């Protein structure tokens, strides 16, 4: 039986740790090494470091900070990965899994080569989605050089399914940073990618929404960002809330 994971997300912008709100507005959030070390004491399943600077390469400062933090929790790194040398640099810094976004659309063959090196289980595809009137769910552009129109989800669903990556990080890019605002599963389009790979949901989750998402067959994890810097042991509280909700549902079923 596959277990479902709770993941903390740390967002980095131009080398600084930030809290992000819909990728439009940002607040300072302290230093990455301190955050990593503190989250490492929370017994999390994974910690994701997501660089949203729209760089064409990985940020050496961020990589150095990850290396110096020296944490035990598995680290997923995303942002600016363009070739195998980036993967090798990140592996030596202690990262175990890699989030790819621009690369799987621009160069699927590079993704294949990376998969041959580290295995498909180490790769996650990032799918940040926004809802456009008349188009349904579309991919939010992550590259500063990309001035083309946003891609509808139905046009990239095949690319996603064919990729060797094992999981998807599906992001509600509008709700991101606004706890409780997540609403992607209310769109029919989302079924295009559910079932092809395991999904980690991110963007505007709270405890109740996470509990509902975890019951979906396609879900392998839920990820939380800003709340990790707002409350002491935030993920533990979420975990407890989910456990209590699951227990109550189980008891109700027994009574029926």
């Amino acid at each position: 039986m596959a277990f479902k994971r709770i993941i903390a997300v740390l967002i980095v912008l131009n080398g600084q740790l930030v809290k992000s709100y819909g990728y439009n507005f940002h607040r300072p959030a302290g230093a990455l090494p301190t955050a990593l070390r503190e989250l490492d004491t929370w017994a999390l399943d994974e910690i994701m470091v997501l660089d949203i600077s729209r760089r064409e390469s990985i940020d050496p400062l961020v990589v150095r900070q990850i290396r110096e933090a020296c944490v035990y929790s598995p680290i997923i790194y995303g942002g600016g990965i363009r070739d195998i040398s980036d993967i090798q640099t990140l592996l030596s810094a202690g990262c175990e899994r890699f989030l790819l976004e621009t690369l799987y659309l621009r160069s699927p063959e590079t993704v294949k080569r990376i998969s041959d090196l580290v295995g498909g289980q180490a790769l996650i595809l990032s799918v940040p989605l926004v809802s456009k009137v008349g188009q349904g769910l579309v991919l939010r552009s992550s590259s500063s050089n990309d001035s083309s129109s946003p891609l509808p989800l139905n046009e990239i669903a095949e690319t996603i399914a064919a990729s060797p990556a094992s999981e998807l990080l599906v992001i509600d890019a509008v709700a991101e940073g606004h706890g409780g605002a997540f609403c992607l599963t209310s769109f029919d389009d989302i079924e295009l990618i559910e079932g092809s790979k395991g999904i980690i949901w991110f963007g505007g989750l709270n405890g109740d929404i996470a509990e509902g998402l975890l019951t979906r067959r396609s879900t392998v994890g839920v990820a939380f960002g800003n709340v990790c810097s707002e409350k002491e042991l935030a993920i533990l509280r979420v975990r407890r809330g989910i456990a209590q909700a699951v227990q109550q549902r189980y008891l109700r079923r027994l009574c029926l």
Partner: protein
Amino acid sequence: MIFDSRLKPPRECVHCLYSERHPFGLQFDKSGLCSGCTTHKEKAALDWSERFHLLSKLVKKRKQRSKFYDCIVPVRGTPEYFYIMDVVKNRLGLNPLGVSYNSQFTSSVGIKNLARIKEVFDVDMLSYNSNPLIYRKLVRESLVRLGHIRWPYLAGETAFAVRVAVEKNIPLIVWPYHQPTEQVGMHSYLEEAEMSRRSWIEHDLMRTSPSDFSLRSETLITLSDIEDISYPENKLLARKGITGIYLANYMPWDTKTYSEEMIKSRGALSAANPRTFDTYDRIDDLTYMGVHDILKYANIGYSRVTDNLCREIRFGRIDRHSAKIIEGYYQTHYPADYLTPFITWLGITKEAFEWFLRFSNFGKKEVTGGILSIVENEFVRGFFSNHPPLTEDIKFTLYGKGLTLAENL
């Protein structure tokens, strides 16, 4: 991250005086407004009566869990802390336990204010005095390691409050405000950010935890030295459900207004401070606006008067241009005689202290700040004081230990 001003000038906010140099980090929107100013706008926009109602519901839940004391309130000897006690005791109807950590450099006005809080609000108070010899060792280490003398106090003040909460099973700690939120807008007030170990290490302790101090081979600090300034473990916090809340998430926090209210209604004392116009802020500590503030400017390029002015600009009580003039004026103050008792206590010479300044990022601000105009003078006079200035109070009060430090130097 230390900003290197030699590379390029730091980006400044178009409204307040903060720049990218701020050690908490600063983000800017498209118009050039910093995240601190953006968050400050919430003070005018939110429905604070509704938010106070939320606070009342939150503390009511916590009140039911505790046996005698409903909450812990960390207390300092400034007028603002009268206001906190007033809110907690009289508006929220809680029975608080005040906790106070001796900074070893408490001013006489600070001691009087602490005594007055106990008297006026009839609250129990727990005070902690650490071993002054160990404390001095920690201050020396933090000066050498971080260029900062208040690290031991900041570590101890929070750690003491949390340790008392754990030991006495009092799950709620009430703080006035979260400094990074007030200064750089780290959180929205709607997010109701809470006290956390991460914030303590990151912002209060400059990313250096107590264990970092003792782990290095060249240090004289031992594990027993840092025992009383260590934060309790996660499993204890989780088991006891310890939460620290900030009143500023539920009230439009304004240090000046609240302090003046308490001076008028509760007899709180205020006094003139060197290096700033603010007669309410940090008047409980003889070193804050002296040695500490000079070191702060030397290391990060701005001093406490900038924090005070940014608050006043955001509340619309002064414009940016006048604030800049006032900032320049106070930053050049160097009260040499006022620094002497601390330097002597620490066991260093004046030349050694000047050496720290010379090899820091920004050194000592030498350029004279000029004179204040009528407008600026009127603004400065708007801050009330009813106690002799701190510069007249040059003897440190050492109580509870019966030691004469001269014998132990």
